[in-house]
């Protein structure tokens, strides 16, 4: 211990005056293991990287790849049971082995961290200003007084783009929205002008539009402080737009490193290739084959020798199992591009690149368009019709006599229809009312206003028996497959449940369950397992099998892939595509991820604050979005291609979703609208006074005849104009 102390004294403030070429952070052979019931879990197995000042290093990997653990090790925040080996040097100073007190001096002042969940990163009982001031006071020394800290807190909040910072500094965390909280956390992180900021999934919990804002703030923060940033994320799109260099992690090890362009353009490790191929891209759409990576990451308890990715790798050969491949410079690539694969040479020699190579390698195909498309849309049966649906939740106040003081207008006049054999994507930020809409549909209860029509029957005036009959044709798959499967029921009972409720006989059920399992790609010998023994992707397959048990005509999918890792997500999306083609299902697909919607949907409806602002065919809406909100949403989605990302112009929405209890007058989007700001005063007045009706959109071609309208593309904006953003 004394040795470390001596060293740290000598290097009390190293770096700043030292040689400039020295890396800011140098991690070498980092090993982290945790005890568990089955033996030690080797979460990180020999990770080495360096970060230079001002550089953004992206660490990508699926859940359980050790990316967060390695960064917690840098912060010294691992639990005492963790065993850490190797070396972590910050400007030459060894951090491993320092006591907690010594680390506390470094944490917050020289290394700062931004966590994933901004709500739990802030203490609920102190104001945001106090918490930022605390960070300043703890590390500021004697010169910092409470009042200077407070003034600085206001400056910092202003810097991260919180409007009216002088007022908001007195607010409590719960009064902030998710995006604002994350900004406040970033403000705290940069308060002491740190050398290094570690951002652990900083935008995962946020909506896309807010994610774009927060990433922008992070960039600003980096420019202001000149710090190096370690950005940990599972989203390759985020990395493509932000990072300079990338590390891809798998099973506790770096499997590929290089500059962001190199990694995205010429990946040399099959895993990276698979990851890149598994993401549905906003700029490609339907024609893109999605690459599912089979299997799941290995357990880190007793790793067999050989390449840990071997069992899931399409290029696997016996030599792969001999020894774990080293991270070596990839042949035919830039010198700092390294990959851990013995067959990188063959990948380099292949004539295809990127997504195409991935599709070829993993044998992924585009699902053939189904014959049902041949009939025109108007001729097909409406399987689900929603007409001016209204759902208001009363807001009550007072003690004994709880009178109603207002209403949360969760859904306020939503109209759409889903016809046989088609997929309607319903998209929007959280809080826009998309979940309420599907819960209203699934509830089959008369709504507050408007009407719901399922397979030709109106929901009002349904008898109990009618409702039960309709439920056979209307099924739902929930977002989180863990939560929507009773952990205490075996797979057989789970899949049989809807049939039992509908009163099918036992013989039928016994015959049908294995059939269904086969249909969704589960092996029938897994029939007596419990959901806890399956991976996320398989659990979602169980949910789908269960939803299909009664041969429904409409399937409501509530964000079915957002809880899954990208490589697994691809498999589920392919399955859904398949089933739709084979069984002629109609989907109502609710999602916040527009790239997923682009991949799977035929039509898309964009919701904002309880209203549909634009609806139409996926190709038209994505290619030529007319509503400013659609444009903003589309531009906020990162594309996993650094070149495209750099070229794209981003529309940044200001602020957050207004409260649905008190929506703005006229056009609900006007408070955040980028178009609104450019309008003249009289035009703006119209937005404020008149709610824009949903009308057929004007055609994209400038030479189209006057008065021509697109048949199936509605938009609700007074000043709708096309702006290409993808």
């Amino acid at each position, binding site marked *: 211990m004394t040795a470390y102390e001596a060293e740290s004294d000598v290097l009390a403030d190293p770096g700043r005056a030292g040689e400039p070429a020295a890396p800011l952070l140098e991690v070498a052979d980092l090993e982290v293991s945790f005890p568990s019931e089955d033996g030690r879990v080797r979460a990180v197995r020999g990770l080495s990287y360096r970060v230079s000042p001002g550089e953004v290093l992206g660490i990508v990997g699926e859940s359980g790849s050790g990316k967060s653990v390695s960064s917690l090790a840098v912060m010294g925040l691992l639990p005492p049971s963790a065993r850490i080996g190797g070396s972590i040097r910050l400007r030459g100073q060894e951090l491993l082995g320092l006591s907690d007190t010594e680390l506390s001096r470094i944490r917050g002042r020289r290394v700062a961290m931004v966590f994933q969940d901004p709500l739990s990163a802030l203490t609920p009982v102190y104001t945001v200003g106090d918490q930022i001031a605390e960070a300043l006071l703890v590390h500021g020394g004697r010169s910092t007084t409470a009042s200077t800290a407070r003034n600085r807190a206001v400056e910092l909040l202003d810097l991260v783009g919180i409007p009216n910072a002088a007022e908001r500094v007195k607010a409590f965390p719960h009064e902030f929205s998710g995006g604002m909280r994350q900004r406040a956390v970033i403000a705290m992180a940069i308060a002491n002008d740190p050398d290094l900021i570690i951002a652990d999934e900083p935008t995962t919990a946020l909506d896309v539009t807010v994610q774009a804002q927060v990433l922008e703030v992070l960039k600003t923060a980096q420019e202001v402080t000149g710090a190096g940033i370690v950005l940990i994320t599972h989203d390759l799109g985020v990395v493509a737009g932000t990072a300079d260099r990338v590390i891809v992690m798998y099973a506790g090890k770096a499997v590929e490193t290089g500059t962001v362009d190199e990694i995205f353009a010429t990946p040399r490790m099959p895993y990276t290739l698979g990851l890149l191929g598994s993401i549905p891209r906003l700029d490609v759409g339907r024609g893109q084959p999605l690459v*599912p990576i089979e299997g799941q990451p290995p357990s880190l308890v007793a790793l067999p020798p050989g390449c840990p990715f071997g069992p899931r790798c399409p290029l696997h050969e016996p030599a792969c199992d001999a020894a774990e491949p080293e991270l070596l410079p990839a042949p035919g690539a830039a010198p700092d591009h390294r990959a851990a694969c013995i067959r990188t040479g063959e990948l380099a020699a292949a004539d295809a690149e990127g997504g195409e190579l991935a599709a070829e390698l993993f044998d992924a195909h585009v699902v053939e368009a189904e014959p049902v498309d041949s009939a025109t849309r108007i001729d097909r049966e409406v399987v689900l019709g929603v007409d001016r649906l209204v759902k208001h939740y009363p807001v009550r106040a007072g003690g004994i006599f709880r009178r109603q003081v207002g209403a949360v207008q969760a859904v306020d006049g939503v109209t759409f229809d889903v016809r046989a054999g088609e997929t309607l994507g319903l998209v929007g930020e959280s809080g826009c009312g998309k979940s309420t809409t599907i819960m209203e549909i699934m509830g089959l209860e008369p709504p507050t206003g408007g009407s719901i029509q399922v397979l030709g029957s109106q929901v009002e005036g349904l008898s109990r028996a009618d409702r039960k009959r309709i439920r056979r044709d209307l099924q739902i798959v929930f977002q989180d497959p863990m939560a929507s499967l*009773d952990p205490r*029921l075996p797979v057989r009972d789970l899949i049989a449940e809807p049939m039992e409720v509908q009163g099918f006989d036992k013989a039928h059920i016994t015959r049908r369950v294995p059939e269904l399992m086969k249909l*969704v790609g589960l092996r029938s010998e897994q029939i007596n397992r419990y959901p806890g023994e399956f991976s996320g992707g398989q659990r979602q397959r169980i949910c789908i099998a269960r939803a299909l048990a009664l041969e429904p005509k409409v399937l409501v999918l509530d964000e079915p892939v957002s809880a899954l890792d990208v490589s697994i997500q691809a498999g589920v999306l*392919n399955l859904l595509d*398949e089933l739709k083609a084979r069984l002629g299902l109609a989907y109502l697909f609710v999602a916040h991820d527009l790239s997923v919607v682009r991949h799977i949907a035929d039509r898309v409806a964009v919701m904002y604050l309880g209203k549909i602002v634009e609806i139409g065919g996926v190709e038209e809406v994505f290619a030529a979005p007319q509503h400013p909100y659609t444009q903003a949403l589309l531009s906020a989605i990162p594309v996993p291609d650094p070149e495209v990302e750099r070229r794209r112009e981003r529309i940044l929405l200001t602020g957050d979703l207004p409260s649905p209890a008190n929506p703005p007058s006229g056009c609900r989007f006007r408070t955040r609208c980028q178009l609104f700001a450019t309008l003249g005063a009289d035009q703006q007045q119209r937005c404020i006074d008149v709610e824009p009706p949903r009308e057929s959109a004007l055609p994209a071609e400038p030479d189209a005849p006057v008065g021509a309208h697109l048949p199936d593309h509605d938009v609700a904006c007074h000043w709708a104009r096309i702006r290409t953003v993808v």
Partner: protein
Amino acid sequence: MTTTDVTGGTGKSVPTGGANPVDVPLDAIEAETEGVTRGTLVLRRFLRNKLALTGLVVLALLYAVSLTSPLFAPWAYDEYDYLSFLQPPSASHWFGTTQIGEDVFAQTMRGLQRSLTIGLLTAAISIVIASVVGACAGYFGGWVDRGLMWIVDLLLVLPSFLIIAVISPALRGSSWILFVLLLGLFAWMITARILRGMTLTLREREFVKAARFMGAPSGLIIRRHILPNMASLMIIDVTITVGSTILLETGLSYFGFGVQPPDVSLGTLIRDGSTAALTTPWLFLFAGGLLVVSVLAVNFIGDGLRDALDPNARRGRNVREDEDPEVEVERA
């Protein structure tokens, strides 16, 4: 870019977009494709648990012996042997005799039978009331919840001991079944409150919502989803209630309710014998030992049942360490 028919491409009928389904391991346990229901599966997992089976056998044996003992024991529990007072175990008195010449073996057997019945019955009554009240209050909410919780609160604030004392003159002389009912009636409230809380959180879980969207009636949802997910707590509660009721009964007997002489229970035996535990240990040891054994057996059964119901428990799974399903990943 290749665009081929998916099923054609892989030559399999499994529709997974070119990829084979599997995300996990074949660990060939229960390689049957005929699904069985939860009941069968739970039973199978329970029977695999040796400790729980032992508990069950021990409990059954204790019951059987205590019930049949009058057939083979030389003395009855209310007989007096005026020739031997306070004698240690011998050939004619297997567990020795008391100060007034009662046969300790006959008494212990009689007491065991009484105590086990009282303990198990009370626990069963209390858990049934608690789960029905707790689950209904939590699941239905509203007036049902308020009404039931009002009753629970009422029973909680009323001192149960006082109530039993007040009504006991009316019950004097009537059967001990009534006494068991009374005990059960005052043992369920706290459990019901806990179960109601758990139901409140379970009700909001998606799998309950999913069942509701399937059109499953409330009763079925409670039986199928709510109660099994609270089973761990219910089982622990039952095992504790069995032990504590046997002891509580002693306290009540002391005040003249419950099992009255000449009838005996393990509790009364332990109470009477414990004062002389060091000088004449046979009065206390056999009754005490059997109490410990029977409570232990109940605990083992409870543990086994809990593991059998809980899919995450390792014991029920029959997986050897070296072939843990997570370790092996199937080759593609």
